[in-house]
């Protein structure tokens, strides 16, 4: 059973790897979108799924990454901007993590949201002071290159989530989620572990933001730091369910397809369905799609 599942994932990865050879620009674009959400949601669960510290502000890492990329683009080689984006996001998480991660529960949720908004407006004001109102990126790499970058990020994010979940670190994070005080008294260095999880869950979204800045050839803070990014990540993780790697993949796949069907013509209807789905899953299927499927498999 485990072997069959493993082969299924390998097959899926290979199919995704072959996609640019098979499909046109539309399909590649759709693939990038899907992989982007997988990478973001997988990164998110490393913090929020595993520790229960629900971040409503992951757009901040995405936006920072995009910003670092466009600022670096004409001055440094592309790979430097790409890695710099991940580094900047990770370091930012480390820098703010210690005070921020002392705030628990719903306060943490709102705090992360507020931080993302604060950084957004700080960058808007900085850009305005520099006289920039949006930045264009010239000479971005071809779509297929971006696709493979994103595939790499998504795969890395899945592997990180999968590995952490099965590691000593993951067990410590789960203990924090269940009862932080009891975890501390069992010897878990909670502050350090939370900080590690925070940085791990920030770095890849930074690089995803960098790739997406190249993809759209444009950077505009309101868009790059849009709360919609944070919301979508949370919705996908909730709908996918759980604290393990398959959840976000299912959630992302489901919502990307739904959005593809509805977004272009009926964006409001898509958003309404999204709202209904979040409510429905929280109330009736808190274990998410992944949990449901697992339960079907072993009756």
């Amino acid at each position: 059973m485990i072997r069959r599942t493993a082969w299924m994932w390998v097959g899926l990865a290979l199919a995704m790897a072959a996609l640019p050879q098979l499909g046109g620009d539309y399909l590649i674009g759709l693939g990038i979108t899907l992989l982007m959400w997988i990478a973001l949601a997988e990164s998110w669960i490393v913090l929020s799924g595993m520790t229960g510290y629900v971040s409503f502000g992951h757009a901040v890492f995405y936006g920072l990454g995009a910003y670092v990329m466009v600022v670096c683009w004409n001055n440094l080689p592309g790979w430097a901007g790409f890695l710099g984006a991940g580094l900047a996001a990770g370091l930012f998480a480390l820098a703010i993590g210690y005070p921020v991660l002392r705030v628990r529960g719903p306060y943490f949720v709102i705090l992360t949201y507020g931080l993302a908004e604060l950084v957004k407006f700080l960058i808007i004001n900085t850009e305005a002071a520099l006289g920039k109102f949006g930045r264009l990126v010239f000479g971005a790499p071809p779509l297929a290159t971006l696709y493979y970058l994103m595939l790499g990020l998504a795969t890395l994010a899945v592997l990180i989530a999968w590995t952490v979940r099965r590691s000593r670190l993951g067990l410590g994070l789960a203990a924090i989620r269940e009862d932080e005080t009891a975890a501390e008294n069992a010897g878990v260095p909670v502050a350090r572990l939370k900080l590690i999880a925070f940085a791990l869950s920030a770095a890849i979204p930074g690089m995803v933001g960098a790739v997406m800045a190249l993809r759209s050839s444009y950077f505009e803070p309101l868009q790059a730091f849009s709360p919609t990014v944070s919301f979508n990540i949370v919705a996908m993780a909730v709908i996918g369910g759980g604290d393990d790697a398959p959840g976000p993949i299912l959630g992302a796949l489901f919502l990307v397809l739904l959005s593809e069907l509805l977004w272009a013509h009926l964006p409001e209807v898509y958003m309404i369905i999204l709202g209904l789905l979040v409510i429905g899953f929280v109330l009736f299927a808190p274990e998410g799609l992944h949990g449901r499927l697992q339960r079907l498999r072993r009756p």
Partner: protein
Amino acid sequence: MSAGLVLEGVGKNFGGLKAVSDVSFAVPEGAIVGLMGANGAGKTTLFALIAGNERPSEGAIRFDGPRIDGLSPDRVVKKGIARTFQIVRPFAGLSVRDNVRVAALYGRGGFAGSAEDWVAAVLDETGLAEQADKPAQALTLSGRKRLEVARALATRPRLLLLDEVLAGLTPTEVAEALVMLRAIQAKHGLAILVIEHVMKALMRLCATIVVLHHGLKIAEGTPEAIAADPAVIEAYLGESAAHA
């Protein structure tokens, strides 16, 4: 410096309220000391101070010489002190085995053999082996109390702080638990500081008993001496006799 736990004039204020003041006593290596007192006497606060959950307002706490007050709880665990909680705090969503595994992997470590063997041994000693793969939330109260002990024990402590692990259990369960605690103590050569309301159990288990009243230490001695101490009878036994 003497081995074991030493409290020197320890006090703790919450706002203007003195929960504990000027408490001094020692728990020598390998000894079992009982901590007694009515509700609100400051017993659990004292545990929180020793285990690093709270920082003392005054005084010093030493373990094998160096001070440990002000260390975070996980650092205290690594020094070799582990506590249980009066109101049990299992990692409810994790399996019983994973509960113990957390403590084994993050505790003081240094056990012979693999972590998995150590976890299995601890589950065995605490009588939880058969329920190891259940989620912790499925345990009965008696099971949860055992899990508290198992989790503390899995950190491989040298001093175990037990906070009312017998409260709420049936007489049979109390008897079983006492056997378990004695076996554990003997096997690991642990020192134990134990808070207990079940008086008989405390008298049977401990060589020394410390009595707290309104945050102050009012007596310390053998169970017999304590039972005969007029101050104790006045403050504690008198009170509970009045309740009965």
